[in-house]
């Protein structure tokens, strides 16, 4: 038995090493490399609590090891009856008081941080964005700037951005681990939070509350750009002409097919707030298709032909006429040419 117990030990040691090598996870996704205010605040508490708890664990483990080694039954002492100790007031008081102190050390900064992250002073003059969760996509509306967009959330760096979040169907949860902890997106009330990204980047966002079959595919991106670039992006988005004819013939066919098939019933281009389906104003700039596929024409055609195979349970399936290959191809061409701004995920470094 000893032999293969050893093997298990080596195996677990190896796997532990492998984990250490894998590091802290993917940059701009992992919470372990915080790049925003909320994530940093959480990380401070994670480190503090881990430190306290590691201390406790070490104490327990050392006592435990000594106890097992010293007091394990020895040869010749099989019948030894130890002294039946009832307890010890002194010892028991010690291990009541010390945990209380340790808990207090954690409790005070926790309470302080809780109030800090709920402090929304500056919200009136700051950037406000209405976030809407839908099965299985995210809509972002900038009420003051009168901009509508979906899936890619543009924010300036170094500034608090205030989010007002609500769901149109079931509960979702807005989570961008590298920038901030999560907040649920409920159907009955508006939840608010603020996020602040320290540096430019394209940050992965995830839905963190089970919302149906495609819960795990409800990804989105937060694109943090410099304040100047953000200003530029806002201007570009505001000056979009939704009726503009595309340049080449295929895309023009695509626009016609888009209109013929009544895609606008759900998908707006421009600042109209109708949001049954994702807003497509800057679709050509999107970092992903359907939230998680590479933004290639091939993928888009695949989506238009059979969205169910990509996102099971999505609301588009069955709610539009069957598109011919040709139509899908031209619509894809048209949509991918919707690039109103030079500020794109690439400008944030993707």
């Amino acid at each position, binding site marked *: 038995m000893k032999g293969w117990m050893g093997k*298990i030990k080596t195996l*677990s040691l190896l*796997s532990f090493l*492998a*984990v250490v090598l894998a*590091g802290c*996870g*993917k940059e701009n996704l*992992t*919470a372990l490399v915080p790049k925003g205010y909320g*994530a940093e605040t959480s990380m401070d*508490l*994670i480190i503090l609590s881990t430190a306290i*708890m590691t201390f*406790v*664990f070490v104490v*327990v483990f050392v006592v*435990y090891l000594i*106890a097992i080694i010293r*007091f*394990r*039954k020895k040869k010749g002492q099989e019948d030894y009856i*130890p*002294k*039946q*100790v*009832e*307890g*010890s007031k002194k010892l028991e008081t010690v*291990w*009541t008081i010390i*945990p209380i102190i340790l*808990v207090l050390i954690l*409790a005070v900064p926790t*309470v302080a*941080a*809780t*109030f800090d*992250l*709920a402090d929304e002073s500056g919200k009136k003059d700051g950037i406000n964005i209405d976030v809407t969760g839908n099965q299985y996509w995210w809509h972002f509306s900038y009420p003051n700037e009168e901009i509508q967009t979906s899936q890619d959330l543009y924010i300036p760096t170094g500034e608090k951005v205030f989010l007002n979040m609500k769901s149109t*169907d*079931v509960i979702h*949860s807005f989570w961008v*681990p590298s920038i901030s*902890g*999560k*907040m*649920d997106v409920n*159907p*009955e*009330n508006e*939840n608010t939070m603020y996020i602040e990204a320290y540096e430019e980047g394209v940050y*992965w966002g995830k839905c*963190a509350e*089970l919302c149906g*079959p*495609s819960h*795990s595919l409800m990804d989105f991106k937060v694109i943090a750009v410099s304040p100047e670039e953000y200003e530029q992006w806002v201007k570009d988005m505001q000056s979009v002409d939704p009726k503009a004819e595309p340049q080449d013939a295929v895309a023009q066919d695509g626009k016609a097919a888009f209109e013929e098939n009544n895609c606008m019933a759900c998908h707006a281009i421009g600042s109209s707030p109708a949001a049954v389906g994702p807003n497509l104003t800057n679709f050509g700039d999107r970092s992903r298709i359907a939230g998680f596929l590479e933004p290639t024409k091939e993928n888009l055609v695949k989506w238009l032909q059979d969205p169910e195979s990509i996102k*099971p*349970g999505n609301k588009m399936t069955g709610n539009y006429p069957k598109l011919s290959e040709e139509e899908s191809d031209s619509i894809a061409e048209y949509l991918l040419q919707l690039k109103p701004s030079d500020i794109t995920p690439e400008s944030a470094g993707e």
Partner: protein
Amino acid sequence: MSTATAQKRGFGAVLWDYLTTVDHKKIAHLYLFGGGFFFILGGLEALLIRIQLIKPENDFLSAGLYNEMITMHGTTMIFLAAMPLLLALMNAIMPLQIGARDVAFPFLNALGFWLFMLGGLLLNLSWIMGDAPDSGWTAYTPLATESPGHGLDYYVLGLQISGAGTLMGGINFLATIVTMRAPGMTYMRMPLFTWTTFVTSTLILFAFPALTVGLFLLMFDRMFDSAFFDVTLGGNSIIWQHLFWIFGHPEVYILILPVFGIFSEVFATFSKKRLFGYTAMVFATMLIAFLGFMVWAHHMFTVGLGPVANSIFAVATMAIAVPTGIKIFNWLATMWGGNITVSTAMLYALGFIPSFTIGGMTGVMLASSVADYQYHDSYFVVAHFHYVIVGGTVFGILAGLHYWWPKMFGRVLNETLGKITFWLFFFGFHLTFFIQHFLGLMGMPRRYWVFLKDQDLDLGNLISSLGALLMGVGGILFLINIIYTAAKGEKASADPFDGRTLEWAVSSPPPYYNFKQLPLVRGLDSLWIEKREGNGKLKPAEPLGDVHMPNGSILPFIMSVGFTIAGVGFIYQPDNRTWLLAVFIGMGIALGSMLIRSLKDDHGYYISKEELEKEAD
């Protein structure tokens, strides 16, 4: 009636015996095999989940099926495996530990089991009908109210029926411990397992009704178009979360407190030492239970309850660390200075200490609300509660089974096989779940059907899946051990481990009347006292006389079948009103059996003094 004589009878007779039994020891067997069956089912579901997650963007399971799998895994393990297995041990041991001949309500005890079993089978019927619940074991509304098909209807009715059974079990144990302790068995002389049974029963009593109400509201919304969670008619889906966690958090302590009791017995017995700080242990148990009701909203830090509520619940949750810490240190102090035998049961207890300490630590970390904004609904949480439930509850159940198997079945489980099982299970467990803490922080939310490529989550998930397979092998070995022991296991004496408490004073397995004469209890660890200071035999508290016994009855089974038929009717009546017929027939059967039960006098029977004298000691 020992299993040996049972084997000689025909299968039909044994089946009838178990269908009609009201004997707490046989009901314990039923709970063990019922809970064991569901444990295997939940384990298979777990393996399928881990196979799906063995590599990125895997297509082993479809998205819908995956959601059904996680829902059924969680629901099965909590309600149909862990809790019944604990109820099996409580039923088998607690009455013996207080020197009672049975529980207060033997009939209700049988009814509780059959309701649990048939409710559990009803829930799993959903697999066969192709429509399993898919909204997670927490069934958050409105996802649960809007879930198509009948999956959630099975969830509601299956849990409603099995929950009612559990509630009866709780009330039964409470009354038993209050009224049926042997002479001299004061509250502060009760073994710790009895204490934790008592406190756990209180938790069941006060927690389950909140779930009952939540399930009713969910049922009404889904089947009768009420508007509790319907936002358009002014409903509010957060109410479900509150009701669910007012039940759900105490539920966690329902799972862990009995195990604390088991480990307290195991540490004391195998260290040959009295439990250190008995009084503190008792009060720590009560304190944990009390605080357990004050902290439900720590499952809801991200719901948007505001900083005041979040702070209060964060601090209240951290406070639970204090009594839990007291327990850990008292166990260590029990071992300290002892004469430790590392049996399989003790091995599980020893494995429990570091594993559960990690689970408790991450619990405190989760209590820090702002840190929880990152942990919440990520694999960190998955890791945490598996450390508590596997590292605590499952280790505890396995320790308890190895410890009390001789008392329940008259044979000692094989120690070599037991130890191999432990090591496989122990390493498999840490391999599976330790890495998940990091997966969560690296950005993997829980309940993800697939994780995408290029997110640095591949290796961690692979390791986790391999660990799960190892746990699976451990589980199979345990089953082999059971079969081996049943066939060739060593016959157990009354007291194979040099025990301290009353259950070791009667033969293994005990006679059906438990004690010929009720024992006189002279202190804590009463058998130990008699072994050290007396002749090793319990002093009787009464002269040998006739013993009153309850009659067996088939009514609990019929009643439960009735409720289950009505449940099926409820599930399908929105499709077609003729299913209401099943509701009426089922309720008719159930209420009819209740009426028979209350109209027909049942005075039980007596074992005469002469018969008792004939029985060997």
